[in-house]
């Protein structure tokens, strides 16, 4: 198995940084948002209270103006001259009243003074407007009010103005009224004062809902009718399409409403600059945080990478490598434990190496002994056999005539036995040689090998009728020579054990049910009771005079298949035939 490489370490390094930066982003975002919200709410609240202050102060500013008129007017309304005039209008009383009104209308602000009848008709008009011959606008007052009343704004030749009306106290009569036409004080000083108060970009409206509106300088279109009545501060979009925060306040003693609207940019200027600063601080925090996280994570992962490198080195066989441990944290502890484990592994490995070496030596010694034994068997056992055979033959040939028949037959048996023993020795040597020979695995075509075995066996002169079926493309990863021995032995066996019947069938193929190759014949078969003896050397299930052989073939087959890590087994019954299965696994064990 391949040891894991460092790729995962890099991932961990960046994951740590990413997690910390992500955490920072969330924290910075939440704090910034909360701070911005608080600042904005504060700014809106501040704007609202400023609105109230503005309308209050503006009210007070105008109120003084009006109130002084009203006090004056109240005095004039109770003047006996006027009372006399309204009670009994005559040339004399009229003249006195005109004189009085003329004296009262000298102020710049007063454009005209009227005395009105209860039905609204004008009884007497005096003042600058009359002298200059300009028309006076109609004024409307709240009818149910009792006492001094103030009208909405109206347009005069010089500009905007308004009216103040007071009843003239004449007992027993319908009330006549005295009406002042007053110009709005639009001096640059007053405008500047108000402008200072509300701020340069803000809009000021003064007027009566449903009537004329002014910004103290000139007549302006009024606010949205819906917003005209007094009300608390709220956001809306004005006629220019800008979002503004506006509030209206009633002016005591008048039907007037003061309305101030601050542009959104003004109200939110402070929270927005705060937000900008917070954003910069956030970016800076993130950068510093990311740097710190990277340094920290690098320090951790570098040590882990180090550990991993040592583990990889050990995995690839360098058992002496150890981790350098510094510090007193968990990674140090891990390193110490790792080193302890590596010590054990190294020790175990060394022990194992020594054991393997000693066993290999023993095995080699045993192998050499076996080889010497085989060699000596090959030489020393065969030499006496050759003598037995040779001299028996010599006796038979040289003295055959003088020997009794039984002696000649006995000598024949001696020779046959010697020959047979020679074959046994040869087979035994073959068995031990195959067990020791080196294996060279390659792709082999079993079908091709089987076909060549069959071709060698086939002898037209024998007159046998044997049908051979070989499944094509039987491939395996095995030693070609050894597999040749296996197929040779199995097919020769099949050939041999079908020799006593007129027709026979031999099959070579792959059995999917067993996942094994097989060689099958319909010959003599064997008694399943003795199947366990089939693969043992020199074990035969048939008498020698029935089928010839040394009994070594299947032992060879078994040994070769086992060397390939495979299995071999047989199925069969007497007189029915035999099937030999074997497997040749691809992986070398």
């Amino acid at each position, binding site marked *: 198995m391949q040891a894991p490489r460092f790729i995962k370490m890099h991932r961990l390094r960046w994951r740590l940084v990413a997690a910390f930066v992500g955490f920072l982003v969330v924290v910075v975002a939440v704090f910034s948002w909360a701070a911005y919200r608080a600042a904005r709410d504060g700014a809106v609240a501040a704007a609202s209270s400023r609105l109230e202050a503005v309308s209050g102060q503006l009210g007070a500013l105008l109120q003084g103006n009006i109130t002084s008129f009203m006090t004056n007017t109240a005095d004039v309304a109770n003047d006996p001259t006027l009372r006399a005039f309204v009670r009994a209008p005559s040339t004399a009383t009229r003249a006195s009243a005109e004189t009085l009104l003329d004296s009262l209308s000298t102020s710049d602000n007063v454009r005209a003074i009227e005395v009105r009848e209860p039905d609204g008709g004008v009884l007497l008009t005096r003042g600058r407007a009359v002298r200059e011959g300009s028309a006076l606008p109609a004024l409307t007052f709240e009818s149910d009010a009792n006492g001094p009343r103030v009208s909405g704004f109206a347009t005069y030749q010089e500009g905007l103005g308004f009216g103040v009306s007071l009843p003239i106290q004449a007992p027993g009569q319908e009330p006549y009224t005295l009406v002042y036409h007053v110009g709005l004080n639009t001096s640059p000083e007053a405008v500047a004062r108000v402008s200072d108060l509300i701020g340069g970009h803000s809009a000021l409206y003064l007027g009566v809902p449903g009537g004329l509106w002014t910004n103290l300088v000139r007549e302006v279109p009024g606010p949205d009718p819906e917003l005209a009545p007094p009300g608390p501060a709220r956001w809306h979009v004005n006629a220019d399409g800008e979002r503004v925060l506006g509030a209206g306040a009633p002016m005591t003693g008048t039907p007037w409403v003061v309305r101030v609207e601050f542009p959104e940019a003004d109200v939110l200027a402070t929270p927005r600059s705060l937000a900008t600063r917070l954003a910069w601080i956030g970016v800076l925090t993130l950068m510093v945080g990311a740097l710190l996280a990277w340094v920290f994570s690098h320090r951790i992962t570098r040590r882990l990478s180090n550990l991993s490198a040592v583990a990889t080195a050990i995995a690839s066989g360098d058992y002496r490598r150890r981790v350098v441990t510094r510090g007193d944290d968990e990674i140090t502890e891990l390193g110490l434990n790792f080193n302890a484990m590596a010590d054990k592994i190294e020790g175990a490995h060394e022990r194992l190496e020594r054991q393997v070496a000693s066993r290999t030596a023993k095995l080699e010694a045993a192998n050499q002994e076996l080889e010497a034994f*085989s*060699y000596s068997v*090959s*030489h*020393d056992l*065969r*030499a*006496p*056999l*050759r*003598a037995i*055979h*040779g*001299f028996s*033959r*010599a006796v038979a040939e040289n003295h055959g005539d003088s020997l009794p028949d039984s002696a000649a037959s006995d000598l024949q048996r001696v020779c046959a036995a*010697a*020959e047979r*023993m*020679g074959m046994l020795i*040869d087979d035994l*040597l073959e068995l031990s*040689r195959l067990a020791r020979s080196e294996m060279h695995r390659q792709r082999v075509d079993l079908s091709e090998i089987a076909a060549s075995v069959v071709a060698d066996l086939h002898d037209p002169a024998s007159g046998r009728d044997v049908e051979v079926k070989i499944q094509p493309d039987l491939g395996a990863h095995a030693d070609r020579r050894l597999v040749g021995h296996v197929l040779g032995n199995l097919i020769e066996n099949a050939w041999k054990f079908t020799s006593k019947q007129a027709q026979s069938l031999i099959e070579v193929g792959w059995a999917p049910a067993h996942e094994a190759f097989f060689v099958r014949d319909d010959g003599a078969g064997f008694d399943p009771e003795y199947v366990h003896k089939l693969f043992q050397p020199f074990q035969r299930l048939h008498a020698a005079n029935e089928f010839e052989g040394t009994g070594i073939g299947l032992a060879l087959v078994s040994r070769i298949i086992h060397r390939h890590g495979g299995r071999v087994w047989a199925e069969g019954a007497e007189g029915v035939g035999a099937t030999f299965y074997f497997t040749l696994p691809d992986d070398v064990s």
Partner: protein
Amino acid sequence: MTAQISGEGIILLVEDNPDDQELTRRALEENDIANEIVVAHDGAEALDYLFCKGRWADRDPDIQPQLVLLDLKLPKVDGLEVLQRIRADERTARLPVIVLTSSREEGDVAESYGSGANSYVRKPVDFSEFREAVRQVGLYWLLLNEPPPRLRRSP
């Protein structure tokens, strides 16, 4: 049978087993090979004969066998070493040496040829086969084959 094979050359038979000596002798005889047979019972004796030492010190060193039949498994000095010494010495380097042995080990065959054997013949158990093998060896090496010039006996 074939014609009488010329009895000119000496056959050196290096063989420790007296049975095999006898069987080889008989096989040669039965094949009408009448050459003189010198038997060496071990490797050391074979070398003594070839290099005229020990028991063979008085031998004419100019006369070398026409054929050496060499067993591999021998007492004292084994067959392979004998072969190597034969090939190492200028006087005997071109001697035809036939390895005649019981072994069929691949290693033995390879080492024999590696050391300069001219042929490798395995002794069969069956005497008829053995006799045939000896006949063919004798026919080829003593009759058919032209020996190297230096080995020819001076007239």
